[in-house]
């Protein structure tokens, strides 16, 4: 759970908010805003080296859920790349 907490803490504007949240508290109901949830999801993507599915994103509602996601199967990457590549555009 420590790794998940560190990841969430880094995504919050006010890290001390996390001290008041238990592993099973709903993050939004505990005062985490939707933008911070998006940042948590992006951090998880960085950690896992892949995009999250809609279901994974929807389930990302507690500290425990973040820990379980991070503990699941992951693609090992030698450090995160500098950023995603460009989107595909039509030629011409």
């Amino acid at each position, binding site marked *: 759970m420590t790794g998940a907490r560190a990841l969430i803490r880094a995504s919050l*504007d*006010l890290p*001390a*908010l996390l*001290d*008041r949240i238990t592993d099973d508290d709903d993050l*939004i109901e*505990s*005062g*985490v*805003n*939707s*933008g911070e949830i*998006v*940042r948590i*999801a*992006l951090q998880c*993507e*960085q950690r896992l*080296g*892949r*995009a*999250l599915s*809609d279901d994974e*994103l929807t389930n990302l509602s507690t500290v425990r859920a973040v820990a379980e996601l991070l503990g699941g199967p992951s693609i090992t990457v030698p450090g995160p790349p500098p*950023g*995603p*590549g*460009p*989107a*595909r*555009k*039509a030629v011409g």
Partner: protein
Amino acid sequence: MWLSHVLRRNLARDPQGVALRDGRRTVTWRDLARDVAALAAALSDAVPPGGRILVLSGNRVEVLEAYFACAVAGVVAAPVNPQLTGPEISYIVNSVQPGLALADEPGRQRLTAGWPELPRLAIEDPPGLPDVPDFGARLAAGAALTAPVAVLHTSATTGRPKGVVVDQRSFQLNATSWLADVGVPAGTVFLNACPLFHGSMVIALDYLAAGATVCVLDRFTPGGCLTALESWQVQHAFLVPSMVRLLLESRALIGADLAALRLVAHGAAPMEPDLAEQARNRLGVELQTIFGITEGGGPVISLRPGDKPGDPPVRGAVCAGMPMLGTDVRVVDSDGAPAGVGQVGEIHLSGDGLMQGYWRDPDATAEVLVNGWLNTRDLGCLGADGYLWSLDRRNDLILRGGQNVYPAEIEHVLRQSPDVADAAVVPTPSPAWGQTPVAFIEPAAGAALSEGDLIELCITQLASYKRPSRFVVVDQIPRNPAGKILRNILRERAERLSAKNAEEIAP
């Protein structure tokens, strides 16, 4: 008359064309006309002309249907941000005294618990409402162009939200200016990623006026937005800079097919040049800057993709662009006289798009609306070539990820604590959100101030996006002899603290 005209025109031209789309429904112009007529009939049965309809819902196509229905029925939509806390919503309910609420499922649960006496309709109901015979005739009615059609609530300098009253003339003017300054080719598909309770919802109405398809995103997530852009073949989108940054950070951008996307209009806050450059290159789009203000009826100034404004006339100024069709701009110095070229002053606007005034608050209205000119309280200057440069959005306004946050509202909540003698809130730069609020707290004599108690107070009283990102205890809040908080001193201190924090975090 305007929105009913838009409906009738598009119903006649392209009844099977898609007007609205979200993750649940695809709504043709014929569906939309039928739903709006049915809902307007239900609204007319429930409230008298001019009565208010509280709209408490997350994003969905039916929120736009509700706005059309209010216009047809001659009633006033009062949309509310579902993120607001109970006390914040209560203030708005007491102010606008709605006769009916249109709400989604979570909204209805909150209404049942907090306002059980307020009659309510499920906002998702229109497709299930009984058909109105000859609905074309029903749509021919419509409220007068200058009758109030919506009350849009903004956070405010006084610490309490103010209701901005707009009419359909404002919608009409806005559509004209968007078509002139942005341009909406036939068949354009537009993605609305921003909340529909917000003043920027007029942009969706602008696209509908042009007969375009408006796609509605329930809530913004980078992956969800990219999926919507790709699968709905979106060509135009309106985003705030924080959303653009999140899209660029998303893993889902790799290989996303954004072939259709041509234009990202962005508003709410300045976009850093490096972010703009990345957006152009990696999303493969043109960018158009939109400067809007709810009291001005929405978008009023725009910097088009081909515009070359040159160097700022004043250090640190960001180019907002040129006035959009139907809006006049002037910059006024501290004496109320027109400021010279390159001279900083307050930005004033005029035109048919301006609000009628603040809801039942003539004093507040008279403070900002004088002889047809709206004082935005934003600071800026005009360049020799007519471009408007923005220096600072209202001294005390905080622009957090596309949402306006006023310090007074947070200060009002913090001062409720018996442990707080005084409080002042200022913006501080944030890489993720543009700005976040920082609260300076002067503890009451002998108080054992706990950050946890302050956090708890904010959680119960303030929507989460308004919560300060830091609490700083000080001996005394600096004020001038007249008692006015010296915000610039606190802003500089907050910025130093943020910079120090960034250094500590940096490897």
